[in-house]
């Protein structure tokens, strides 16, 4: 595969006797939008948590940019360039939108005593530089109008967008999105699709979506990985997945995927 960025290698995660994730492998190329789908209980969230370092795998590896990142901790995974968003909204509610984004930048600029000793990267950006970067990120997600508004008072859809902005503030090369469309109305969903495509095309971001919303995945993703009961049952382009009998069966043969 050309320019492989992320490789999930024979990943398993057991909870007691239950194999929430069983020997799942796939890889993501640089600049790709890939979707991870499956019915409820398929192991999508487990896969998401293991890849982002929130929980360690029982066996298998997550290789990101040539490095084994399995087992986290998440903060370390993020610093290496793999960021995540949350399924429900996750912000610092009392802080303004700009301050939320600033906090997303902190891991790159914060000169904590210990970090300064062990990390040689350039830190402690000047205030104007911070301000410019905040503007840049708010422009990317079109939240500039809400810059000085407290995050907690934003509408749900905007809070989810802010979640993406905060993740972008870490300057990731790949962004893992945990059900970005959950709770959004039709219009917001279209806007989200536009935003994600922009991030890929204009900012060269690689995206991995874990998603329930079939229409969004089919429209947006170049490749789709289907999980059922912890196992990968199919992988391919949206057209291939749509025709795949195993996938159709897993989704009870529903002809209308929009609300599977």
């Amino acid at each position, binding site marked *: 595969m050309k320019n492989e960025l992320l490789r999930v290698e024979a990943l398993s995660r057991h909870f007691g006797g239950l194999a929430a994730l069983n020997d799942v492998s796939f890889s993501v190329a640089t600049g790709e939008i890939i979707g991870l789908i499956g019915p409820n209980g398929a192991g999508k969230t487990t896969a998401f948590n293991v890849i982002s370092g929130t929980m360690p795998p029982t066996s298998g590896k997550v290789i990101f940019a040539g490095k084994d990142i399995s087992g986290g901790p998440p903060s370390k995974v993020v610093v290496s360039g793999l960021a995540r968003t949350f399924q429900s909204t996750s912000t610092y509610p009392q802080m303004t939108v700009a301050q939320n984004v600033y906090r997303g930048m902190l891991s790159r600029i914060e000169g904590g005593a210990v970090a300064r000793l062990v990390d040689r990267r350039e830190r402690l950006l000047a205030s104007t530089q911070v301000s410019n970067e905040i503007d840049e990120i708010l422009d990317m997600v079109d939240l500039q109008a809400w810059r000085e508004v407290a995050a907690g008072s934003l509408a749900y859809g905007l809070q989810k967008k802010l979640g993406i902005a905060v*993740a972008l503030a870490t300057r990731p090369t790949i962004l893992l999105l945990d059900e970005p469309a959950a709770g959004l109305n039709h219009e917001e969903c279209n806007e989200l699709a536009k935003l994600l495509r922009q991030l890929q095309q204009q900012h060269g971001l690689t995206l991995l979506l874990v998603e329930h919303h079939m229409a969004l995945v089919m429209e947006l993703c170049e490749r789709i990985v289907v999980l059922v009961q912890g196992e990968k049952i199919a992988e391919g382009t949206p057209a291939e997945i749509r025709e795949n009998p195993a996938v159709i069966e897993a989704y009870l043969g529903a002809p209308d995927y929009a609300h599977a």
Partner: protein
Amino acid sequence: MTQFSMPDLTLGRKQLTLLGLLGVLSIVPWFMGAFVLHLAILTSLNILMVNGLSIIARAGQLSFGHAAFAAIGAYVSVLFSVEFGWNILLTSALGIALAAGFAFLLGWVILRLKGVYFVLVTFSFGELMRLALLDWSDLTGGANGIANIAPISIFDFAFDSRSRFYALALIVAILSIVLMRRLFSSHFGQAIDAVYENAALAESTGLSVHRIQIVAFVLGSTLAAFGGILQARYIGYISPESFNPGISVALITMLVIGGQRSVWGPLVGALILTPLPELFRGAVHTQNIFYGAVLILILRFLPGGLASVTNLFKGKEKQ
């Protein structure tokens, strides 16, 4: 488009007025006799120690072992001075360094615990420290403690009177407040607040919650050790009971009543609660009931503590 700026350190007019009043208040004890001077010294030391506690609390953990770190600082400093005759600056540095080391090791292990579990372990640590000091009587003097501790003297200038020591304690207290203001307007201070407000989000943006809590715990415990050292040199006597878990609880009470999320909380708490037990010596037992009631009322109706009442102190922090 407004420019993003770090929290502002300039003070508004109301804040300056209040600071001026505090400045006058801090000078008054020199003219009020020994007892008031004594209270002022204890208040200053409590401001220092509660500031330490507040750094830990702002990172999301409540330490019930704060007095234990004061004990480490005090005992190490005093013992090395008594046993080896080392210079007080050296033994103080050693006491602080050892307390920091202890905090690092303990923090590394127990800061993964959350909420009440962390509280329980730090409480146990405080009690263990007291018992260890009691038991190790060959070295520590056990329950009798160590008396006749020489006062601090730097370059032949001895802080051996109340009025001299108050000058030292006051400067230290002021410096600790300056440190707090600088800390919580720095990137690292913002990271501490981020961890408190949404640990999962902070972690997912590359801020290691564990690392930040360890640094906060070490920093806060270091201030406790410093306070313990000063207290030992001021009172001239230490025993395991000088640093029992009850002291930790008293410091927590000051923090909660003063305000946990404000730089001014520890100041307010120490200022109000240090003199009270000394003034109401006659009501030793009833006053604890009173503190308990006040604590519950504050937590229920004023979670931001007294420092949040006016917002005069908070100025631009609150938007």
